[in-house]
């Protein structure tokens, strides 16, 4: 906007705001502030909150969802969405439980979980990129389809009896209170952060989200990039399925129900534009921490899960509405 105005002086400043001013207005700093506030509120609300083992338990609230959220963030930045992630978890978990009956060991089970995740991602990706269908509708369909297959296989039954070495993937600790899942979370945060912010592929993702037509003219293989993103989201859902199944020790078709909404909430809360084209991985990491701590803190206060979801819903709308509301009032 200010670029369109005639310059008042002869020289144009290199940047309109300094790095410090820009940082203070950034979404990530706002989120960090919220996270710190919630953390302090939690320590005040419950004397047990600061216990290291307690904090370690708290991380299980978000690690699995956040792993999917990283891939989902890239997908949403590229202008697509995958609502079938929880359905993929159900199907991958069912496949692992089914394979377990044939005496497959832990490595085999993990391979099957990841393979089913990838296959589901490939189905979504093919429907969206090959047939040119809108991803929101396709994945609403595949969400029902994937979970539906799990219901056909399992009905009202459950698979359990996973081996101990498999259970470690969901319940084990690497050192002291640092769980295997937390390590995976940190590792994927780093990988996705580098991919999105430091590689050509990441720039392609952002460009596609801003303008797929321009991206195609710039020589970016839009469909291939989107296909890769759907595959990644499927794979991450498969990984989350392995961790969640290992942690729960059983598979029911209702596993991870409504997670797709929580994952999307996490991504949007992390400052990723639902319209595509912008977003950051540090934002998603902070959003995961905020959501995880809100639900865990409220849990310590014996607030039921469904009431926590009110907070999450209000948080989702509030963090987007309040800045816009402030801007509107200032603009008048």
């Amino acid at each position, binding site marked *: 906007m200010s670029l369109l105005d005639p310059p008042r002086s002869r020289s144009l400043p290199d940047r309109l705001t300094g790095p410090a001013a820009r940082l203070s207005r950034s979404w990530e700093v706002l989120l960090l502030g919220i996270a710190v506030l919630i953390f302090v509120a939690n320590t005040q609300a419950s004397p047990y909150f600061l216990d290291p083992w307690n904090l370690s338990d708290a991380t299980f609230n978000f690690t699995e969802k956040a792993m999917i959220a990283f891939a989902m963030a890239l997908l949403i930045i590229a202008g697509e969405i995958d609502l079938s992630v929880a359905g993929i978890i159900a199907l991958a978990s069912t496949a692992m439980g089914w394979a377990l009956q044939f005496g497959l060991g832990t490595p085999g089970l993990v391979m099957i979980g990841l393979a089913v995740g990838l296959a589901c991602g490939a189905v979504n990706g093919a*429907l969206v990129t090959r*047939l*040119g*269908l*809108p991803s*929101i*509708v*396709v994945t*609403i*369909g*595949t*969400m*029902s*389809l*994937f*979970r*539906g*297959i799990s*219901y*056909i296989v*399992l*009905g*009202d039954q459950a698979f359990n009896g996973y081996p101990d070495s498999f259970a470690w993937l969901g319940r084990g600790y690497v050192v002291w209170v640092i769980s295997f899942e937390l390590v995976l979370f940190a590792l994927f945060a780093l990988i996705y952060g580098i991919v999105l912010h430091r590689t050509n592929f990441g720039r392609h993702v952002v460009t596609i989200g801003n303008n797929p*037509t321009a991206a*195609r*003219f710039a020589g970016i293989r839009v469909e291939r990039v989107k296909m890769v993103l759907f595959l990644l989201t499927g794979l991450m859902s498969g990984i989350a399925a392995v961790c969640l199944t290992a942690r729960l020790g059983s598979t029911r*078709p209702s596993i991870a129900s409504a997670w797709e*909404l929580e994952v*999307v*909430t996490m991504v*949007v809360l992390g400052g990723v534009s*639902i*319209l595509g084209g912008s977003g950051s991985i540090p934002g998603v990491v902070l959003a995961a921490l905020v959501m995880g701590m809100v639900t865990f803190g409220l849990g310590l206060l014996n607030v*039921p899960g*469904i*009431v*926590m*979801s*009110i907070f*999450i*819903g*209000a948080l*989702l*709308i509030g963090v*987007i*509405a309040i800045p*816009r*509301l402030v801007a*509107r009032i200032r603009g008048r």
Partner: protein
Amino acid sequence: MIRSFVRSREAILLGALIALVLLVESRFSGFASPGNLAAVFNDTAILIMLALGQMLVILTRCIDLSLASNLALTGMVTAMLNAAVPGLPVVALIALAVTLGVVMGMVNGLLVWKLDIPPIVVTLGTLTIYRGLIFLISDGAWVNSHEMSAAYKALPRAELIGLPVLSWIALAVIAGFAVLVNRSALGRAFLAVGGNPHAAVYTGIDVGRTRFAAFAIAGGLAGLCGYLWVSRYAVAYVDVAGGFELDVVAACVIGGISIAGGLGTVGGAVLGALFLGTIKNALPVAGISPFWQLAISGAAIIIAVAFNARSSAKAGRLILRPESTA
């Protein structure tokens, strides 16, 4: 006119629906009897009404994922009020349900209109908020059949000229929507806003206000269905109609309503809902486990959307030729 109908997607869908009914009838005689078809219609009535409300929202390039939560909340409010004050006339409860539904729809609409927040984000948030509020007001307790007054439970089941009142309400809503969408300025505005928002502005249509109206109407219908659902099944609890919002979207998609907005008909939405409802009712008849239902509706959505895209595929989407032919 007949020729254009035969080629329309409604005709194809109607054909598919008839074929489906005949297929079930051929193996399990009696499915296509008028009495059973009326029962299927009655069973699908709520889905039809919600699909019509969702259609308006989708026509304006928005989406409302909070309809099922809205339904469950208004249903719980009417049930609790009925249990607390059994003397309150049912008409007052229905008026309250519709008002409450409209208010919840208006909340969605205002956030989309005034703050320009993407509708999927808004309704994803209100979906969880409305659902959570049910727990807050009910404390997780159920309102059971014996706590509801006889008049409260009787209305949707009462028979009027051979059909339950629930079916008549659905028929009235369908007729009302046919007039609204095809014969009123507001109805055409929904289509115009979705078809081309910029052009709509030039013709003097307020895009935001039109979207707001769509959300309010859809919310009002969800409220009405809240009462109907709870009184029909004679039980109210937190998870009433859980996941039903996706069935509603599925009905719209199967009915040929374009998720990109501006394209869709009342007949399409009704047929889409009936198609899903028929499958749902045919499964137990055919002895197929109800656990198949989710996968079948999922597959139906994918096939429908692929089919719709094929029939409305536009040439010239290809910007650059593939390398092999360049």
